[in-house]
């Protein structure tokens, strides 16, 4: 069995990074871990993997959280975070039942999403809005 996290992360970077997601014509940067102090960003968080093998194939279920974080002054702006969320969803799941995820070395099943309620925080004079999208899917390692 190959730990699928690196290949999955690369697949998400491939679809979301390099200006693929934009807000107000500005590219939304993609990072991992704590992220950066930016007006808007996408953070690919640590995934959960539950192995579910057959006797002849390596496979399992993946939950890959992707967090969209926006910072703005003034009032909380859920509209900004959700516009970016929609851009992310359109890139990962462009059509019903079909994902654009190309995970090298693995077959990817139908990708389902779970959108976590918005978290709002205040830091100094900034409002921070966080929305996590959990992508859930089955993967099967190519033999």
């Amino acid at each position, binding site marked *: 069995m190959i730990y699928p996290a690196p290949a999955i992360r690369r697949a998400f970077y491939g679809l979301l990074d390099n200006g693929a997601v934009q807000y107000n014509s500005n590219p939304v940067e993609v990072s991992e871990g704590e992220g950066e102090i930016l007006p808007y960003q996408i953070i690919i968080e640590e995934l959960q993997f539950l192995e579910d093998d*057959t*006797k*002849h*194939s390596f*496979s399992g279920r993946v939950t890959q959280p992707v967090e969209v974080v926006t910072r703005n002054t003034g009032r909380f702006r859920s509209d900004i975070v959700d516009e970016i969320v929609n851009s992310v969803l359109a890139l990962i799941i462009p059509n019903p*039942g079909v994902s654009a995820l190309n995970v090298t070395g693995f077959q990817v*099943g*139908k990708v*389902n999403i779970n959108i976590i309620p918005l978290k709002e925080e205040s830091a100094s004079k900034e409002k921070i809005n966080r929305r996590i999208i959990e992508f859930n899917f*089955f993967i099967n390692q190519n033999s």
Partner: protein
Amino acid sequence: MASTSNSVTGNVLGLWISTNLTVPAWKEIVCGTDIGLDGSKDVTTTRTKCGVIKSAGDTSWTITGSGVANHTPLTGEVSADELIAVMQGTTDVLVRYQDDTTPANMYRGGQGIMTAYSENAGTDDPVVFDFTIELNGALTIVVPV
């Protein structure tokens, strides 16, 4: 007391069938998940004035298997398509499951006919299949020589 290290775990068992009854050409079911064995007897209960008399018929055995469909099984393997061909046929097959490393540790086999086959294709899941083979004779528990 017997050693627990001598127990047999399901992951070491392979399920195999052969459509050639004369010279077995065993092929393994891929990608296998579960294997089952069920034995039963028809019991007739007669209430007499001397008491209840129970009589049992011959033992009937079924071997069941489950797996995830594989569209390109390797040589020496079978999956959903080949099992459907067996299901649509009317001839017997040989079936066995065994500890693939040391068959003597566990061996179950016999000759029978496939009487049930089903597939399930859930939206989020790989296509899975289940089948049942009813043996038409005794169950063999010793590796044939």
